[in-house]
């Protein structure tokens, strides 16, 4: 879909998914790395647990559909090559500290001189300016300052982030949205555009209905484990089953159906069938009306029913009978999840160490311009010769000077 466009990806781990998304959508993405490699190459998990540049799965996972070149931007030849690429490019994405690129003469103003129609996207923790602009940040502190942590975790323990880093991934996909929004504007104004992405605000959006709760209802939401509140009543969503956990929200028609299961299995007496208008039970709870069986009794029955069944048995039974029961999938479960296999989600990729692996595939199915993985993450400088030689017409000696590395 984006095949006419060229993207220069100068990011590190804070922005690499942005270029990948545009690459998945068809753009020609050129990953520009320093001669020492992107810092993300030093981030695990590593193939064979070997912390080497070409063994980082962090790098491998977020740099598909890109060509890779190395440029020494401290050297004049490297800078010249970059500006020559900018003249041919449509987008630049970078994730340096605010002002850093401008300080090196590589900021938006310099780039728009080279290409007056360029869309320049900058990803930073807090935005380009303001009192926090120069503060250091980490995934954890962005989850804190952006708000979602205040909503997550057990009430008797500290608030938690998700145990895997998320902030830069949210900011990166957001940067891809910003890139195409600015491109649409550029087409109308014929002027270069600067897109200023703030990871803190990307994390705020993950609070969903919690973002402005206090201003609206006069109180904040707080962390409460996996409990959902129905009026004044707490409903625990997570229940332990034979091989892990499932999530069940016992309301409406699903609750009525489950009561039938419980009676059939002898978990509750038969008079439960008629004791309540079960599809309306949650409405009574919300309105604090008297109920024949308390929510605690209902949740006990849920727990007793699922205890000796597996996640998949419960999912299948629920699907057949119109009750939403969600398995708490772990990595192993996801790898084997039938839905993903039958939709052909997984792809097979050759890894840099010669192994072959099952890897996550593309994120949407398109009828007219199907997304494909044209290439897996490049080795450092893999396409330096191709890009600088064929695209810019540089001679071998010039390429070596620009890239800061001997040719592969």
């Amino acid at each position: 879909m984006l095949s006419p466009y060229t993207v220069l990806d100068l990011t590190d781990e804070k922005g690499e998914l942005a270029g990948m998304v545009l690459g998945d959508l068809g753009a020609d993405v050129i990953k520009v790395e320093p001669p020492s490699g992107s810092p993300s190459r030093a981030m695990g998990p590593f193939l064979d647990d070997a912390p080497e540049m070409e063994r980082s799965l962090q790098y491998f996972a977020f740099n598909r559909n890109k060509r890779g070149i190395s440029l020494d931007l401290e050297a004049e030849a490297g800078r010249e090559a970059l500006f020559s690429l900018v003249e041919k490019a449509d987008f630049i994405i970078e994730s340096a500290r605010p002002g850093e690129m401008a300080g090196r003469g590589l900021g938006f103003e310099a780039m728009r001189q080279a290409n007056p129609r360029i869309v320049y996207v900058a990803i930073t923790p807090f935005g380009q300016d303001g009192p926090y602009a120069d503060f250091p940040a980490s995934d954890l502190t962005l989850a804190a300052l952006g708000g979602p942590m205040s909503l997550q975790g057990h009430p008797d323990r500290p608030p938690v982030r998700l145990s895997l880093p998320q902030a830069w991934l949210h900011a990166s996909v957001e940067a891809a949205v910003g890139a195409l929004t600015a491109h649409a504007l550029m087409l109308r104004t014929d002027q270069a555009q600067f897109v200023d992405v703030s990871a803190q605000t990307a994390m705020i959006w993950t609070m969903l209905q919690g973002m402005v709760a206090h201003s609206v209802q006069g109180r904040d939401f707080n962390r409460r484990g996996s409990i959902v509140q129905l009026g004044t009543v707490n409903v625990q969503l997570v229940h332990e089953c034979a091989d892990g956990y499932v999530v069940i929200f016992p309301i409406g028609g699903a609750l009525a159906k489950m009561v039938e299961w419980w009676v059939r299995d002898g978990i509750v007496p038969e008079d439960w069938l008629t004791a309540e208008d079960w599809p309306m039970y949650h409405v009574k709870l919300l309105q604090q009306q008297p109920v024949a069986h308390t929510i605690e009794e209902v949740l006990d029955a849920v727990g007793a029913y699922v205890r000796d069944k597996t996640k998949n048995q419960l999912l299948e039974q629920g699907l057949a009978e119109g009750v939403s029961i969600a398995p708490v999938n772990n990595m192993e479960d996801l790898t084997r999840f039938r839905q993903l296999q039958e939709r052909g989600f997984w792809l097979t990729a050759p890894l840099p160490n010669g192994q072959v692996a099952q890897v996550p595939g593309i994120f949407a199915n398109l009828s007219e311009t199907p997304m494909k993985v044209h290439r897996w993450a490049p080795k450092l400088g893999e396409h330096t010769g191709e890009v600088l030689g064929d695209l810019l017409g540089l001679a071998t000696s010039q390429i070596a000077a620009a890239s800061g590395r001997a040719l592969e």
Partner: protein
Amino acid sequence: MPDTLPFEGLKVADFSWVGVGPITTKYLADHGATVVRVEANNPLDILRVAGPFKDGVPGPDRTQFFADYNTSKYGITLDLKNPAGIEVAHRLIAWTDVFAESFTPGTVDDLGIGYGTASSLNPSIIMLSTCLMGQSGPTASFAGFGFHAGAIAGYYEITGWPDLPPDGPWTAYTDTLSPRFLAVTLMAALDHRRRTGKGQYIDAAQLEMGLQFLAPQLIDHGLRGRSITRNGNRSDVMAPHGAFPCQGEDQWCAIAVENDRQWAGLRRAMGDSDWAKDERFDNAAGRLAHQDEIESMLSEWTHARTPRAVMDALLSEGVPAGVVQRSSDLQQDPQLAHRGFFRNLDHPEMGTVPYPGHQFRISGYDSGPRTPAPLLGQHNEYVLKEILGMTEEEMVDAVVAGAIA
């Protein structure tokens, strides 16, 4: 002169509901498109019956959950179970550039507004169908809430404490990342159509978008069988790395020491406490091995200070730190104030309430949100007459026939 907006003139018929679809079309609406949000009266959009409600008083036009994600849109209530309602739907489909829906798979075909019909009414239409599992596959019909999706996509497993059942992320985690993927995909499809005249059909599973954020660990699992699980706030490579208790009621500051230089910074911020001079803590391996001890001593220092004081002391020494902010704190955040992130809009029923702005700023125009979300059925007449160009008589006929829910 008014700002030029990126998507001015773009037309969107938004038949989706709840989170993912409406959040996706909000990007287009706030950035200039004409978006018609098609709703039902029964059942109401779940967001209209979920809080937070203004002043805690429920009502379909009083919830910020709906209000936040439907800014800058027009609203019409159609009865899609009535042929007259479908006739209006067909006119909207013929009018629009983008048609979005998020029903259970198969529903739009049953209603007579599937892609086959849509593309015959409007050959270059771009149609987006999004649901949890995708349009095909053995569990396509799974219809659940966001927390079901968060569990299925692997996010419950990795949120909480190793010795406790999973806590899960805050509500509907896949609703937070999917709209980003969908918005960029729609924009790419629109650019493709601008150049080629060709529309297309997009089938997007929230599960498959969700797994993009777990990619390195999913690959690692496939190779080595290591299944990452929840681990509080701890990291495999950094310590200390957690939320530390501060002065006040349930107040916390998050601290992440990423390297030895930052550890030295933390020691300076604490006034070079004796306990921290221990050489076992001088490198990451040592700090990881003794993090119980470090967390306990560090907590004593933080507990005597406000979260803001802890954050300021650490940031000034170059250590990543951040107050665990609630929605009330965000309203006081100086960086967000500088950025003009929250915008007040005056809503007919809710009054003046702050709305979150966008996560990127593009110089040269204000990305809104421009107008508050529609009241239920607020623009029924406007959509029929001004947008679809119906005459007074046609409109009356449609209403009498039961098109409007």
